[in-house]
C-alpha cells in the first residue's frame, strides 16, 4: 500500500492504547504523532496539520466530540477516524454527524483501522 509519508495523529488519554496505535501505524510506515489530550492535539494544529487524526471519544476535559467541534469551528478539514471503547448508537450518530469519516470500536482490528485511515485520506485528497 502506497502510504508514503502519511502523517497520522493519534489522540487518546490512555497511554497503553496510544502507544499500541502509534506502533501499529508506524509498523506500516506511517508517520505518527501521539497526543494524550484533545487540547494538546488542537495546540499542534497551529504548527501543522496531520493527514488524518485517530480520535478517542472518551477523554477527560476535552472529549472527542469537543475536538471535532473545535476542528469545525476552526474550519480545519482534517479527516477524523473515531475509535471508542464505549459504543452506543447515540455516540455513533453524534460522531458521524459531526463529520467523522469512520467510527470504529475498541479493540480495533488493524486492517479495519488502516482501511479507515486510507479511506479517509483518499477521500480527503
Amino acid at each position, binding site marked *: 500500500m502506497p502510504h508514503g509519508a502519511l502523517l497520522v495523529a493519534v489522540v487518546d488519554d*490512555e497511554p*497503553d*492504547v496510544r502507544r*499500541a496505535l502509534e506502533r501499529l501505524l508506524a*509498523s506500516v510506515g506511517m508517520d505518527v504523532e501521539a497526543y494524550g489530550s484533545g487540547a494538546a492535539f488542537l495546540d499542534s494544529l497551529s504548527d501543522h496539520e496531520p493527514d488524518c487524526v485517530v480520535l478517542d471519544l472518551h477523554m477527560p476535559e476535552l472529549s472527542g466530540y469537543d475536538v471535532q467541534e473545535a476542528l469545525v469551528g476552526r474550519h480545519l478539514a482534517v479527516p477524523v477516524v473515531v475509535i471508542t471503547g*464505549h459504543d*452506543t448508537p447515540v455516540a455513533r450518530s453524534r460522531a458521524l454527524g459531526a463529520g467523522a469519516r469512520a467510527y470504529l470500536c475498541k479493540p*480495533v482490528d*488493524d486492517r479495519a483501522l488502516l482501511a479507515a485511515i486510507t479511506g479517509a485520506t483518499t477521500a480527503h485528497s
Partner: protein
Amino acid sequence: MSWIDYAMAMLPAACLTLALVHGLVWLRRRDQVWHLAFVSSAVAVAALTALEHQLAMAHTPDEYAATARLLQVPLALLFASLVAFVRLGLGVGNGWLGALAISLRLAALVAGFTTGDHLYMRTIESLETVHVFGGDFPVPVGPANPWAALGMLANVALLAFCADAWRTSRHQPNARKRLGASLVVGSIVAGLPLAIFAVSVSRLGWFNTPLAYSLAFLPVILAMSYELSMSLLASEHLESALRTSETRLAETLERSELAVAALGLALFSWEPRRSTLWLSDRARTMFELPPEGPVALGDVLASVHAHDRDALRQVLAAAVATRSAWDREFRVGAVDGPTRWISAHGSVSSGVDDGSLIVHCVAADVTAHHTGTDELRRLEREAAQQRDELAHLSRVTILSELSGSLAHELNQPLAAILGNAQAALRYLERDPVDLEQIRAIVVDIVEADRRAGEVIKRLRSMLRKEGANYVELELNDVVVDALRLIRSDLLNRRVSVRWLPAGGMPNIAGDRVQLQQVLLNLVANACDAMADETGGREVTISTVRIAGNQVEVRVSDHGKGVADPDLEQIFQPFVTSKADGIGLGLSVCRSIIGAHHGRIWATRNADRGITIHCELPAIDSTATALA
C-alpha cells in the same frame, strides 16, 4: 419452846420443800443432775438439823453418842452433794480436791462409828447442861478422840476445794453464772469456818452451839436454790427465745418456699458425705422424679441430658472441693427427645450439726429464654442474609447501570493488547527483526493483560453473591477501588472527581465489596444530582479521621439538592427523585453501614447540593464488636 425449837422444826421442812421442788425439776430434766445434787444437799441439811435437834434433847451420854455418830452420815452426804453440785452444776472446782474432801469425810464417818463413843470423844462420861440462845443444851464431857482430826481435815479439804472453785469461777464469761457460782461457793467458804469454829469451841466446852452444821449450811442451801432458780429461769427464757426463733424460721421458710414456688424455682440440697438429697416438689417435677420417696443424686443426674451430665457432675465436684458458689445451665431430657433448659445456681456451706458440707441449689426452667434466644439468632441470621441479598441486588443494579463504562474499562486494555500484537506481527515480517521493539511490545501486552484481568476480578467480586466478609481495610483504598470502577462513567457524564484523602488513617474492619458498593452508590447519586448542571460538574470525596477512634468518608456534590425538608427521607426505601430508579440505593447503603457498626447521614452544603457522611469505627473499637 424457845425460838430454837421453832427453827429446828421449820428448817428441815424448808429444806425438804426445796428438795421436793428440785426433785420434781430433776424428774423432768434427767440430764440436769445438779438438781439431784441439790436435792441430796437439802435432804442432808434437813437430816443434820433434825439430828442436831435430837442431840439437844439427849438425856444420857449413850443417847448423845448414838445421835452424834449418826450425824456423820448426812454430813458425808452433804460433802459429796456439795462437791457434785459445784463440779457439775457450776462447772468449777478441782476434782482431786473434791475427791479428797469426800474421802476424808467418809473416813471420818467410819472413824465415828468405829473409834470411841463418837468422832470427837473417845468416851462420853457425863452430860453437862449449858444455857445458851435462851435454852438449855446438853454438852458431853470426856476425853477427846484423836480421829477427830479426820473430820477437821475433811473440812479443810472442802474449804480448799471451794476456795479453788471461787478463784476459777471469776473467769466464767457469763455474768449470771459467775454471780451464781460466787454465791454458792462463797456461802460455803463463809459457812464452813463458822461450823468448824462452832464445833471446835463446843468441843473445848467453852461454848456450846446446837445446830452448828445446819445453821452453817442453811445459807449454802439458799444460795444453791437461788442459783438453780435463776438458771432455770434463764433456761426457760432461752427455750422461749428458741421457740420464737424456731417459729420465725418456720415462717421465713414458708414465705421463701412460697416465693420460690411463685417464681417457679426449684430447690435442692445435697450432702455429699451422707449421700443424702432433699428436693422441693418443684425440683422433683423439674427433674422428672417420683413425687415422693428417697432420691439420690444419681437419679437427678440421670435425668440430665447426656451431653451435659458429665459437665454438671464436674461442676458439683469442683464446688464441693473448693467450697465455692457455682452457676450452670444444662438440659434435662433424653438426647433424642424434647429437652428443657435449666439454669442452676448453688452454694456450699457447712452443716450445723457436724460441719459436713451441704450443697444448696436453686434452679429455674429457662427453656423459654433459650427458645427465645435461638429464635432471635435465627431472625438475626435471616436479617443478615436478607441484607446481603438486597446488597447484592442493589450492586447488580448499579453495575448494570455502569455496564457501558465497565465495558469501556475492559476495552481499553483489550485495544492496547490487540494493537500491540498486530504491530508485533508486522514488525516480525521485517528483516532484520527489531527484537528490542518486539520485547517492548510484549511487555506492554503483558501489562495490559494484567489490567484487563484486574477489571474482570473487580467485576466478579462485585457480582458475586456472598455473605459479608469482614477484613482489615484502609478506607482510602476502598475509595480508590470504587473510583476505578466508575471512572469511565464519570468521563461519560463529564463529572470530575476531587479526591482528598486524609493521611495516617487507622484501618477499619469491613467487607470490601459492600463498602465499595456504598461509595459507588454515593458517587453515582452525586452525578445524578448534577445531571442538569450546565457548568462544571464536580464530586468531592474526602476522608477524615475524627475523635473517638472513628473514620469518615464524605461525598459532596453541588447538584439540585433534596426538596424534602427532612433529609432523612432519602434513606427510606423506595424514595427516589429519579424517573428510572427504585430508590433502594441509599437504604441499602444505610443497612450496610449499620452492619459495620457505623452510621450514614446527609447534610446540606452551604452553597448548593448535599454531602453524605459515612462514619465507621476504626479497627480498635470494632475488634470486639465484630469478633
